[in-house]
């Protein structure tokens, strides 16, 4: 591997969170982002080719070493690391609305879900998945929420564009069952 790739590898190994290309570029300012991109690709390919237990993954607008899927069970069982707590359906509903409508106010979330969502939003803020991004126009200048990089991270997404496009969803419910011929 090139000297830059080895430097990047060391930095990624040391970090417990995804590092962006911008952050990695500060390691060797002369190198430039293009070289960093090339270095990252070099590491990723090297780990893939040599068949390691970890892989370099592009996630949450950055890069991170993650263990390979097939070892999850064993690591989990030995409790060297634990899978994160599952998100409740209410939390996922709220996350979906915030992700697609951001910046979005609480009233709109309540309206779409048909239930009061204040407590759920507070929980999501506490877990760092949602945050206040701005304030809206209008009465009381309501707080508007958006998703955080942590949101991308727990879903394993590079960026928000990886979310399914709304047109791709099959919105309609199943049509009524066919009745007997008339």
């Amino acid at each position, binding site marked *: 591997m090139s000297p830059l790739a080895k430097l990047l590898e060391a930095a990624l*190994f040391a*970090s*417990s*969170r*995804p590092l962006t290309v911008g952050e990695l570029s500060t390691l060797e300012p002369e190198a430039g982002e293009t070289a960093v991109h090339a270095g990252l690709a070099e590491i990723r390919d090297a780990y893939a080719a040599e068949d390691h237990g970890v892989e370099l*993954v592009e996630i949450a607008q950055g890069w*991170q*070493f*993650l*263990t*390979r*899927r097939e070892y*999850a069970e064993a*690591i989990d069982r030995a409790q*060297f*690391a*634990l*899978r*994160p*707590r*599952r*998100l409740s*359906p*209410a939390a*996922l*509903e709220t*996350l*979906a*609305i915030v*992700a*697609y409508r951001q910046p979005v106010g609480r009233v709109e979330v309540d309206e*779409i*879900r*048909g*239930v*009061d969502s204040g407590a759920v939003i507070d929980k999501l803020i506490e877990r760092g998945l949602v945050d206040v991004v701005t304030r809206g126009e209008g009465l009381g200048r309501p707080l508007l929420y958006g998703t955080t990089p942590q949101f991308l*991270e*727990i*879903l*394993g*997404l590079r960026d928000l564009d990886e*979310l*399914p496009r*709304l047109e791709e*969803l*099959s*919105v*309609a*419910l*199943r*049509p*009524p*069952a066919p*009745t*007997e011929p008339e």
Partner: protein
Amino acid sequence: MTNPGVTAPHHAGFVVELEQFSGPLDLLLHLISEDELDITDLPIARIADQFLAVINELKLNQAADYLEMAARLLRIKAQLLLPRRLGEDEWEDPRAELVRRLLEYQQIRELVDWLGHAAARRAEQFGRGFRPEPPEAPPAPLVIELNDLLAAAERVIALIPEPVLHRVVPRPLDVEGATARIEAVLATRERCGWRDVVGDRPTIVDMLSAFIALLELAKRGALRLSQQGPFTPIVIQRESPREAA
């Protein structure tokens, strides 16, 4: 509603759990998909009845969100019963708003599946520097001064409304009197109108009494009520024994 022969469903063993629903829209979608109904042409009366039955059964009738939806369904049901004015083009289906919200919510549910799946896949990989998630913090211990407590109690007490007393009047309606009056009118005339049985300046109680009396007499077969169309005068006609047979 479609073919009752085919759709005779499985309502008998209706078992649902409270945690299963994240809100009234979720419950509605569940009822709709269970009976495979067409979401764009909802049989509101049927859905409203089922919805009420379920929230009663699950004791969800305490939850404001469910009650609000129940009220909304009943209002739509009532709106659908109102006569439409002829030639009124801009009649908007009262169900339209609900259908829009259901479709939107349905979309969210699909995204929930997608997000849940993505999160589960991500959870199969671990990053470096594992730190166990902190357990959910217990609520902070309550620190309060006696004076604050007393002040708070005073505020609550101040909010307790004076009890409102209603006088209950025992049944001001005089259906028997109205019945006698109608029978008296019909004894002399074969047919008459609404004004003939309530008088020129009826009070609301007179009108209600007369109306109930008319319905009762019609039920007994003593008279026949007819009306050309909505809001046209009501014609009251004596029913002769021969015709009744």
